[in-house]
């Protein structure tokens, strides 16, 4: 991989160089434009009144005092939305239970309809001239609640007497199975050794530093709506809102996601607030601006993970994996969020082969409703849950078999590609031993025993843990996704508009909320066209300007969005060749394009890019009988497979048994992302992912009171996010087996860090402590108890 510290070399292709980000200028000078920075003329301010109860019927809502409060413009409740026949929020992925029945899809109202189902559930939207007036008025709304028992405990949700939704009596959304149960049962019957573990994949709160925000405006003159919203996929947001909820034509709605301060999945979904604001903006006749307070974000941003699982790994006497059996209960929260149903199924069970040849796998997943915030995709979305399970049980299997954890992995690695796993995916390429070996070298695994002894001499315990992850990303082939229940396609769009003077604007359906697309996509286009990176402008995030794309999540932007752009660029080049052929009086097939120049093969007759672009728009000498003027092409790309980034992570920790505090002595990450466009940006993605994964493993815990359903961890005072001093610098490297099915050979890198790091950390910690398991987050007290032989 290129050195991220090298200066840019314009004589070489921009691909593989650490081009410094072009978008940085506005961010480092305070000139960015986040949704809360958007000020619309005449705007009013919205505040949502939210349920203080986890579960309650609404007997009545008295708005009289609130409506009379100073500055109040309007107040909307579920009643107004019901009268207007506003629909509920849809779920985008249909899962079927083992018995063939479709998943339960209880209504997901925009504002509460008779019942509230989690603390923070939206009850009313108060609109006023100032934010303070809206907040003051919200306190005057009188809601008469009849409290109901709260369903909080995940494991007991399907057997408690209380239903979160009246039409789902057992709180079970679906009971799904995947794999070959008979083959797994047969393998277990013959197994020489079985390792069994139970896990909780702890519930997390994404906490992008920019809280959710929206500003919705209705334009009376053309009866259209504009919604500014902190969102990762404006077209999806628009489609869902228009087609399924508000019944508006998409052609009358423009969704703009300006600068967005982090998403990690939490800003994918269609949220009730966005819909309520859009609907109300017409009624109020003025824009309505809303920005979540952090405590509001805690309560209502989709949470992540929250699985309880048991897993069993069957092996023969030599440590070859024979079968894996998994049983998981997954929390959907109170309502089905946009992709919630797919996260613990399609994005999870299909990865249970990991990097291994395990021939038989069977997983059962039960998804249940509870009186907690909706749970949906969060960095990794299903793949961290799968990897945690597989890599923890493999590490424990090594311990049970008294084998080296690297050796047991190598013994079971898939080595020939393409490889069709027993859980439905075909890995196209990979080289797992290569990154494991590189990680072991970087981590100086050989020197570990000496380091362990040195720690012991100081009275400290030291441990080393591995995680070899694989994920499926570059989401996704639409036909496969559709067959698996997706209600949307997962292609991507790219439009390349060449200007007469030769600069280029690229419109991409991908969205950057930190990933640096304005730079990396420009590198890709500049390389392919042979023009300076600075001559390529990337536009994203606006349904009014960009063709329909599915947005950014699932590490798909470069693999899918980048490929769509490449295909559009290739169309531009193809047309450019025809124009050049005309200008050079040669046959189309004799034209070559290289380094920004079109030339006649075998001669030095050539014409520069700028001449061709100008000719396209000033078509005086132009084959108008055969070719249209202009040089503006778009492409929609539907991938033929997922991509399969994989890697090996090694974590080394030292434990202070007196306090339970853990110091991460080193963290090594070697990833195979295929080809790399910008090493600096790729490394940054890995750093951030590792930090979030370590946050999950070390300190992040979303906790609801089991009786009242109150969110106990409702602010940064109680929900611990990693600070700089909590985690170390990382040792990052890459290997490369280029993706076989996209022209860039890229696999995507946005989620890997969060996928591989939790098991690496817990494996290291359990190694240090000599225990079988330690629950995440492994808080100092948990570690202290394990270190001192106290009950958990």
């Amino acid at each position, binding site marked *: 991989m290129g050195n991220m510290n090298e200066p840019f070399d314009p004589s070489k292709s921009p691909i593989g160089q650490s081009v410094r980000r072009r978008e940085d200028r506005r961010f480092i000078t305070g000139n960015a434009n986040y949704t809360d920075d958007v000020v619309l003329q005449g705007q009013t301010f919205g505040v949502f009144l939210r349920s203080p109860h986890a579960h309650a019927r609404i007997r009545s809502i008295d708005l009289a005092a609130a409506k009379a409060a100073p500055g109040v413009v309007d107040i909307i409740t579920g009643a107004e939305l019901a009268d207007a026949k506003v629909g509920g929020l849809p779920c985008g992925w249909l899962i079927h239970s083992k018995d063939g029945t479709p998943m339960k899809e209880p209504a997901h109202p925009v504002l509460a309809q008779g019942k509230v189902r989690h603390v923070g559930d939206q009850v009313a939207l108060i609109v006023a001239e100032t934010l303070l007036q809206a907040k003051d008025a919200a306190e005057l709304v009188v809601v008469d609640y009849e409290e109901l028992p709260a369903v909080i405990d995940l494991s007991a949700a399907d057997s408690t007497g209380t239903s979160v939704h009246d039409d789902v009596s057992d709180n079970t959304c679906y009971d799904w199975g995947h794999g070959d149960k008979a083959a797994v049962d047969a393998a277990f019957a013959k197994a020489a050794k079985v390792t069994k573990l139970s896990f909780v994949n702890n519930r997390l709160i994404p906490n992008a530093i920019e809280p959710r925000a929206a500003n919705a405006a209705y334009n009376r003159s053309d009866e259209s709506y504009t919604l500014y919203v902190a969102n990762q996929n404006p077209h999806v947001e628009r489609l869902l809102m228009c087609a399924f909820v508000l019944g508006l034509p998409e052609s009358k709605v423009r969704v703009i996601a300006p600068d967005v301060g982090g998403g990690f999945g939490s800003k994918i979904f269609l949220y009730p607030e966005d819909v309520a604001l859009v609907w109300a903006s017409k009624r109020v006749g003025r824009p309505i601006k809303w920005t979540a307070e952090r*405590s509001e974000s805690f309560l209502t941003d989709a949470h992540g993970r929250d699985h309880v699982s048991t897993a069993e790994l069957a092996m023969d006497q030599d440590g070859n994996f024979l079968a894996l059996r998994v049983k998981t209960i997954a929390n959907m929260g109170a309502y089905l969020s946009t992709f919630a149903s797919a996260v613990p199924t399609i994005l999870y069970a299909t990865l249970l082969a990991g990097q291994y040849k395990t021939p038989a796998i069977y997983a059962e997943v039960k998804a249940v409703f509870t009186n907690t915030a909706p749970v949906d995709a969060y960095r990794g979305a299903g793949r961290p849950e799968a990897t945690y399970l597989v890599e923890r049980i493999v590490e424990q299997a090594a311990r049970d078999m008294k084998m080296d954890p690297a050796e047991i992995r190598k013994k079971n690695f898939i080595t020939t590609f393409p490889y069709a796993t027993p859980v439905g995916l075909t890995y196209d390429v990979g080289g797992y031993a290569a990154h494991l070996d590189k990680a072991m070298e970087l981590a100086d695994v050989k020197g570990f025993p000496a380091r362990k002894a040195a720690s012991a001499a100081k009275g400290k315990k030291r441990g080393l843990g591995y995680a070899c992850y694989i994920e499926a990303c570059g989401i996704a082939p639409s036909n496969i996704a559709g067959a698996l229940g997706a209600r949307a396609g997962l292609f991507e769009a790219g439009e390349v508009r060449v200007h007469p003077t030769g600069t280029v604007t690229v419109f991409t359906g991908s969205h950057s909320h930190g990933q640096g697309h304005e730079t990396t996509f420009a590198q890709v286009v500049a390389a392919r066209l042979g023009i300076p990176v600075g001559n390529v402008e990337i536009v994203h995030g606006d349904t009014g300007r960009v063709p329909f794309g599915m947005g950014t999540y699932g590490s798909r932007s470069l693999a899918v969005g980048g490929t769509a752009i490449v295909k559009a660029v290739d169309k531009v080049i193809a047309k450019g060749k025809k124009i050049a052929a005309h200008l050079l009086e040669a046959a189309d097939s004799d034209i070559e394009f290289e380094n920004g120049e079109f030339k006649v093969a075998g001669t030095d007759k050539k014409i520069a890019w700028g001449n061709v672009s100008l000719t396209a728009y000033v078509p005086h000498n132009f084959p108008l009988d055969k070719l249209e003027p202009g040089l503006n092409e778009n492409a929609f790309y539907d991938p033929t497979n997922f991509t399969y980034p994989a890697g090996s992570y090694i974590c080394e920790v030292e434990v202070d048994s*007196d306090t339970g505090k853990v110091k991460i002595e080193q963290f090594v990450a070697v990833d195979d992302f295929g080809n790399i466009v910008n090493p600096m940006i790729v490394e940054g993605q890995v750093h951030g992912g590792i930090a979030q994964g370590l946050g999950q493993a070390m*300190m992040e815990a979303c906790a609801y009171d089991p009786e009242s359903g109150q969110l*106990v961890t409702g602010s940064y005072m109680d929900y*611990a*996010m990693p600070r700089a001093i909590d985690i170390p610098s990382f040792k990052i490297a890459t290997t490369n087996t280029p993706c076989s099915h996209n022209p860039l050979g890229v696999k995507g890198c946005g989620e890997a860090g969060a996928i591989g790091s939790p098991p690496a950390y817990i494996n290291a910690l359990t190694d240090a402590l000599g225990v079988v398991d330690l629950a995440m987050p492994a808080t100092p*007290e948990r570690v202290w108890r394990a270190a001192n032989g106290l009950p958990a």
Partner: protein
Amino acid sequence: MYAFEYQRPTSRDAAKSAAAGADTRYLAGGQSLIQAMRLRLSQSERLVDLGAIADLKAIKADGNGVTIGAMATHASVASNADVKRIAPAIAELAGGIGDPMVRNMGTIGGSIANADPAACYPAGVLAFNATIHTDRRTIAADDFFTGLWETALQPGELITAIAFPAAQKAAYVKYKQQASRFALIGVCVAQTAGGVRVGVTGAKGHAFRATEIENALAKSFTPEAAKAVKMPTTDINADLHGSAEYRAAMIGVIASRAVAAALAR
């Protein structure tokens, strides 16, 4: 936040008159109060901002110790040459509160008046047997912290300064709660003129003296002696950051580290 009437007096007397009569709070650095007001957890009719009263910020060495003005920021205490010379543990304690931005605004007077059960200063005040000077009397450290968010202060009473006797063999060690960065357990150990004193914060509803550890250290001022003390779990806080059993155990562990740090001076 709820509406309030705002005043910014430039003298102590003006501050006292401003506080008289109405439902009033003093605003010191605001690092706790402003947040409480933002979250609508705190409400007063009148806010009296002490920030313009220059003589409340003074830090002065005197006689046997150092007197720190109530409005001295944590940053100014941490970097003050007299505090570092006379009561270095207090300079270090101040330098570990919150983060650099909090330290540029937060004040010692505001901290002890607020009496957050996990604030650092109360442990230091107790360990050093500091004297709290107000506009109307002096209050001994042992009498100051009376309950959860409660102090001996009367309505309208204004802290003017806190006098710390000199103590060399003293140290404060803070074990940070991972989320809030307040003290999960903070222990200040000081050898004072009146004997060893151990101030503990984060463990109970208010800072207190761990007399069991004081007794052990009086016999043997060593880390081992502190660590050997098993603090009882009575009245010890329990929450998702630490059970009572864990916190109680950490008091001895952190105290022993404070003793080691004190001995290392």
